[in-house]
């Protein structure tokens, strides 16, 4: 499979009045054509900041992208997303890379009809006149499963239910035939039965259009159902990258192991305690000098406190940032 996006050593910091927040400390990963990469992590781990950095969606200042490159394989050669000029960014955003936000109600303009919002994106990126753009909008709305798309073209976002609004967001994201769609917790605010509908829809669209998807979530259940590969983030670092099956069967980072163990299991015995990770995530205002998970890690030893671990390869396509070999039960 060929690469469509390669991110290397991305460092993003926020310069606030209270001090510097080290949001991303050198995140590297890649995305292949047609695959789904899930990014999991807790709040503040840097999942969204990673994606927003790539698309220049962070307010600057206070944010600053200090280092890194993000090579996107465009039709006419590779481009570095981090070095784009303003007009080029606009061409990529929405045109080459679609974005689905978590909160559809605040992502959509409340005083603009839904049809116009989808149409606007189409007219911005594809050279279609108003009539053709309108046609395409209605087709898209039908395609994402909005009943009576034609009559709902002139409706405002508040007239849609949560699930329907998320469908509109998906329509906007795929309106201009993007190569990549970034879905930032698209189902977190939805009820489970509606979440199941949206996941099914996203999978169908991905198959039809052959797009690559980056799906940001904190729900390890959702990840199991949608992902080909998984990137686990903790305190601004990508701590583990793995094919999905391997990650669940054979986690190689203590944090991933802890997360999986903390989930209640179906069919578990009554009265069985959940395994929990002690403590809470670190303060990101401290510059990272060692493994950020060391405080909470059951395996930590002297080397963990001396330097931040590099990425070790532990299997095919499986990488972990940990000095401790959990299989051999000894330091690497």
């Amino acid at each position, binding site marked *: 499979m060929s690469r469509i996006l390669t991110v290397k050593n991305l460092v993003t910091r926020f310069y606030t009045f209270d001090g510097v927040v080290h949001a991303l400390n050198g995140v590297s990963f890649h995305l292949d054509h047609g695959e789904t990469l899930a990014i999991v992590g*807790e*709040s503040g781990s840097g999942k969204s900041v990673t994606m927003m950095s790539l698309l220049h969606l962070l307010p600057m200042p206070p944010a600053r992208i200090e280092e890194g490159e993000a090579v996107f394989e465009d039709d006419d050669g590779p481009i570095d997303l981090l070095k784009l000029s303003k007009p080029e960014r606009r061409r990529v955003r929405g045109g080459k890379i679609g974005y689905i936000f978590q909160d559809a109600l605040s992502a959509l303009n409340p005083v603009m009809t839904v049809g116009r919002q989808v149409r606007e994106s189409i007219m911005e990126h594809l050279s279609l006149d108003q009539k053709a753009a309108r046609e395409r909008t209605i087709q898209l709305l039908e395609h994402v499963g909005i009943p009576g798309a034609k009559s709902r073209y002139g409706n405002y976002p508040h007239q849609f*239910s*949560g*699930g*329907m609004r998320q469908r509109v967001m998906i329509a906007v994201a795929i309106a201009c035939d993007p190569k990549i769609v970034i879905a930032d917790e698209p189902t977190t605010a939805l*009820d*489970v*039965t*509606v*979440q*199941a*509908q949206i*996941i*099914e829809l996203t999978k169908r669209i991905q198959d039809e259009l052959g797009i690559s998807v980056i799906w940001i979530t*904190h*729900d*390890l*259940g*959702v*990840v*199991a*159902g949608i*992902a080909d590969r998984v990137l686990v983030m903790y305190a601004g670092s990508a701590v583990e990258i793995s094919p*999905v*099956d391997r990650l*669940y069967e054979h986690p190689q980072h203590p944090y991933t192991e*802890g*997360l*999986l163990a*903390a*989930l*209640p*299991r*179906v069919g*578990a015995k*009554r*009265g069985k*305690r*959940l*395994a*929990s*990770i*002690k403590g*809470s*995530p670190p303060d990101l205002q401290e510059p990272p000098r060692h493994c950020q998970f060391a405080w909470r890690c059951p395996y930590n030893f002297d080397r963990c406190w001396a330097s931040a671990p590099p990425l070790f390869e532990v299997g095919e396509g499986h990488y972990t940032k940990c000095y401790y070999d959990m299989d051999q039960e000894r330091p690497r």
Partner: protein
Amino acid sequence: MPEPNGPPTATADPAPEYLVRVEHLKKHFPIMRGIVWQRQVGAVKAVDDISFGIRAGETLGVVGESGCGKSTTGRAILQLQPPSSGRVFLDEVELTGLNESALRRVRPRMQMIFQDSYDSLNPRHSVGRIIMEPMVVQGIMEEADRRSRMAELLDLVGLNLNHAVRYPHEFSGGQRQRINIARALALNPDFIVCDEPISALDVSIQAQVVNLFEDLQRKLGLTYLFIAHDLSMVQHISDRVAVMYLGKVMELADRDDLFDDPLHPYTQSLISAVPVPDPKLERNRRRITLQGEVPSPARPPRGCVFHTRCPLAQEICSEQAPEYREVLPEHFVACHFADRKGGSKISV
């Protein structure tokens, strides 16, 4: 055996095994129209005629999608929002219809923990003051005793005395929820309504707080009504589970019976929609996908409220509301077809 769904007369003698009993509880919010001459044009039936009991020392989980009335149920039981009709008992005491001062005397026995751990703590009070406040309100104990009780409570929830002088904003979400729990325990309650207490927390912290809930239950013999939308967590913590939809209880059973053999089509769909953290299982899973979304509780469908989305709906479902009844021992269902073997099972 008492029938929680029976008419009030049938349960006139209080059933000793239930600590909390809810009979035909309704909570309707009026929809008003007009500015000067307001008139009622309808009602949001947030909770519509539900009955159940909670045994001493058990955890009853309540699940359902947003707008199903699970939080309103919790609030109505505690009389934080007085029910529109129906009766609620705590032991032998009928809570419905009690006046303010009588209610205040019962309040120490029942407490609530809210989802938003920050909004439910006064940001301008120190943690110590927050935890001691219930004792001050109830006017019990001397100042010195309150302090030692506060220290005891902090220890109980895994905080320490140094935390007492700090303010809520200095704590993480998980710690703040511990403060909320300490405050709820201040007056030695029997019964606690936990309204989505872990929904806002991260996975690794959720497990800590859930374990704390379980430890406290064991130590203090607490009874919980545990409201949540996360099915796997509810399955973990509950002894029995009630599934709500549009203000009604659709199914109530022992947690193993409910999850292993759900009888109501809605329960089956709900369980089927929850993603399991196991990629191999997920890939081979056949899902029941419900069409559409939950209708507005201001205009619930006629007949069975679920019939608009139910894959098994027949003519009778849109005409007649099914009776909520005990189909199997201790297994209550509101579906017309639940009596026949396999009659209410959705095949995938």
